[in-house]
């Protein structure tokens, strides 16, 4: 055997690129290329027919004509309603994330500090709603939040309110729905970080004379920082583009970018405009996504 062929024969080089290439190709074809197409079509124009958008480049009389429609983007930037939608999406997502954290952190903390047998049971209980249908869980809130729903029935029975609270079809309902749906996504990574924390660190802090509240602020909180960031991003990023919850629980004045994009696509059949809105959404999420990738990559390298 010559040195060259023997080197080729070695188990890594030839097989290795094949092994990497397989999933790489899959991801490129079904993730990267589609997204580039969205960018491309955001520069096309709406037309009647199949597909309902124009070609960017056309060959006419031996000349390549390139038509880039920039109108969608100028419209996205100049229209005040769109601007309000971006802000509102970010705000709704940010408030929901914060509420999730306020509810999720104590839950994750106390579950992680329970004894091991209870711990697993409780985590299973947190996960169980996540395994049931997302749509059904959002639907459940309609029955609770309606004017004659369970919550108002209870409040009136307890004489806490005289007239039913307006909740259904308001932003408040959307917040409740978002927190409810995304809570497990925050509790899971937080729990994972809190449960593997070395408890002797806390004992050492107590031993050195720190008060419980100080121990929490100076030891537990900093050590669960990556869990907090991961969990918040897992809630915030999808929440910005959420469609189902504002559609089912929100009112017609609940402005969310995912909903706008859906309407452009399905109701107005304006695919190029929907693509442009999608690009805007991606731009909006670029920084949080890069952060998320950064923290995930750190986990991979551990």
């Amino acid at each position, binding site marked *: *055997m010559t*040195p060259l062929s*023997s080197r080729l*024969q*070695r*188990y890594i080089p030839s097989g290795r690129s094949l092994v990497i290439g397989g999933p790489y190709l899959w991801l490129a074809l079904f993730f990267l290329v589609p997204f580039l197409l969205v960018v491309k079509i955001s520069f096309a124009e709406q037309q009647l027919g199949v597909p309902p958008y124009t070609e960017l480049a056309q060959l006419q009389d031996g000349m390549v004509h390139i038509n880039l429609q920039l109108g969608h983007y100028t419209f996205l930037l100049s229209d005040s309603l769109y601007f309000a939608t971006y802000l509102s999406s970010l705000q709704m997502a940010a408030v929901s994330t914060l509420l999730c954290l306020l509810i999720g952190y104590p839950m994750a903390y106390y579950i992680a500090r329970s004894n091991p047998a209870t711990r697993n049971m409780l985590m299973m209980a947190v996960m169980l709603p996540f395994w049931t249908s997302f749509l059904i869980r959002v639907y459940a809130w309609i029955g609770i939040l309606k004017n004659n729903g369970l919550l108002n029935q209870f409040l009136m029975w307890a004489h806490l309110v005289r007239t039913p609270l307006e909740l259904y079809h308001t932003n408040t309902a959307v917040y409740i729905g978002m927190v409810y749906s995304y809570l497990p996504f925050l509790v899971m990574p937080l729990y994972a970080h809190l449960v593997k924390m070395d408890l002797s660190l806390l004992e050492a802090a107590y031993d050195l004379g720190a008060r419980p509240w100080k121990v929490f602020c100076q030891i537990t909180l900093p050590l669960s920082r990556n869990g907090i960031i991961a969990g918040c991003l897992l809630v915030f990023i999808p929440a910005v583009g959420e469609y189902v919850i504002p559609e089912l629980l929100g009112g017609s004045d609940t402005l969310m970018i995912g909903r706008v994009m859906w309407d452009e696509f399905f109701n107005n059949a304006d695919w190029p405009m929907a693509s442009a809105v999608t690009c805007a959404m991606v731009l909006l999420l670029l920084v949080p996504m890069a952060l998320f990738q950064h923290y995930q990559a750190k986990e991979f390298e551990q």
Partner: protein
Amino acid sequence: MNAAQAQALHHASTAPDADAFVRIVDVVKKFGEATAVAGVNLSVARNELFALLGSSGCGKSTLLRMLAGFEEVTSGRIIIDGEDMAALPPYKRPVNMMFQSYALFPHMSVAANIAFGLKQEKIGPREIDERVADVLELVQMSKYARRKPYQLSGGQQQRVALARSLVKRPKLLLLDEPMSALDKQIRQRTQIELVNILDKVGVTCMMVTHDQEEAMTMATRLAVMSEGRIVQLGTPHEVYEYPNTRFSAAFIGSTNLFDGNVSVDNPDHIYVECAALPQPVFISHGITGPLGMPVTLSIRPERVRLTRTAPDNTPNQAPGKVCNIAYMGSYTLYHVQLASGKNVMANVSTLAFDNVDPPSYDEEVFVSWAPDAVTVLTK
């Protein structure tokens, strides 16, 4: 044999012997910029148990992984029984390894673990069963054939791992830190058992360890490695009694080192002037080197004598004060501080105290040693 002879022997044995069973020739391994193995030459005879000894990061494990084929050599050659290994991936090499963690497949029984290697060859099921039974018998684990690895104790797991690496009758068996996963109490017994089994089978062995006692107990020859190079090579006795460098003197066992210069150079004796000692050290053999050459003297603690009065049978002595006493059972380790501030260790056999009151803290004592108890190190 004196130090010079030991030196000569060392040189003779580093040059790879063309007839040796395993030959490692000028092997270099680089990971990017870092050099893990920097030009190693070694030869191992058939049925020898050879140990690579060194602290972590010295390149010994990398060398072992190159023998197994898990790492490619950057340059150099590895030849086993006349066959160059370069072209062979690990699964085609006539080499088997017993892993530090044992690496027993947790989802397979003991018997299936041992049969695994045989199943990769075209061997009939009956022969596989026979060979598995034989090797289980050899390591006295026949009763446990159906157990899963997690149902075995550490020592039993080790024997299964040994059986699994022996059953394919490899030309070279690699042992990676074979005792490190065992409790200290059972190590010594296991070392002897392991050597007995390997003797019975008659296999060429290369083991890697950071534990010098383990290497000395088990190996027929050993190589001390440091920073990717072999520092010294020889039998355990040679390496312990005639260390050739400060590094191997300090790494194998403990020792007292004194820096000095040769002040009198005669063919049959020399004197070495040391700053830490009150008078020149008399050494009863000659060395090759010029007058005034800087040298280091190594004196093993068990060769240092401790007396209350100045001894008259050797010029090599110094007064000092006992500053630390560690009772070790069969001997007591004394630390004596000399006037120069230098600490000298002396092992005193417990038997020596049968009729004498042992020296205690802050007592004035003398340390001394015989002219032939000193090894002169030139590097």
